[in-house]
């Protein structure tokens, strides 16, 4: 019985050792590796270039927006000193003045706001941002 067992296992081992890879596999694997290699050289740099372009475009647009919004800030910040929004007596005026704080430069400045920069006494005295703690009543 033992001899039969050994014979069975030996024959299994012989069968196992005689199994070889089908001949097409080597070529197929090499072709697959080659195709992956040909994809990589342009794929990664292209992705990197795309990301870099997005970053540059983002920075450029951000800088452009800052430059565009600067006059609006200059117009809006003097309103702080005379902002009736702190002591709103007439809501309509308050809302009107609030639009003066807007970052949108296309909106016309509020009629209550000083029409030209430097109209405020603090600004005339050389302060860039004339902020008054004393609210002016409308």
């Amino acid at each position: 019985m033992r001899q039969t067992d050994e014979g069975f296992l030996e024959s299994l081992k012989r069968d196992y050792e005689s199994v070889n890879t089908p001949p097409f596999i080597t070529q197929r694997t090499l072709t697959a590796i080659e195709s992956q290699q040909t994809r990589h050289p342009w794929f990664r740099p292209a992705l990197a270039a795309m990301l870099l372009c997005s970053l540059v475009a983002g920075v450029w647009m951000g800088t452009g927006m800052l430059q565009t919004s600067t006059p609006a800030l200059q117009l809006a910040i003097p309103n702080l000193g005379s902002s009736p929004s702190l002591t709103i007596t007439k809501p309509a005026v308050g809302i009107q003045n609030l639009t003066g704080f807007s970052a949108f430069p296309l909106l016309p400045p509020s009629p209550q706001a000083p029409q030209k920069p430097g109209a405020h006494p603090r600004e005339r005295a050389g302060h860039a941002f004339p902020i008054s703690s004393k609210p002016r009543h409308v």
Partner: protein
Amino acid sequence: MSSQPLSHHDHELIAQFRKGDADAFVILMERHQDRVYRLACVFLHRLDDAADVVQEVFIRAYKSLQRFFFRAQLSTWLYQTTRNVCSEFNRRTPPTAEPDLLQAGPDCPHTELESTRRMLRIRCALTVLSERQRSVVVLRYFESLSTAETARMLGCREGTVKATLHQAMKVLKSRLTTFEE
């Protein structure tokens, strides 16, 4: 899976491949692909996937050999990768019935058919074993690795390998006895 001098030779080939010699990789592949294929045939649910597993293992080897640190032998690395890839394939495909060899087309080469028939016989014999027992039998008995090498590949102690092999042989023999009765 590999003796010490062969392994040393593997390292030289890997060093050549890192320097840009693509032929060194082809030599490595031709040296190890039969073993990878046989292991895949034993561990896979579907025998048809074995060729795909060999391809996937060597694609991973090609990518990984650039940063191979020589902490392990290449054969150990290939064995682990083959097991991992087989597990990935097995997760995708549930166990199915073995292919019917009589349905093989006329374009199927005779040698390939014979090879598949032999592998089916082995798979049939090993179905009674657990996954661990199968691994030990394949590495220790079929691949003729030492107990220490088998233990290193399976990540267990040498004593565990010996005990598992003993149990596996007992199961195989009992199956043979049942089959003969």
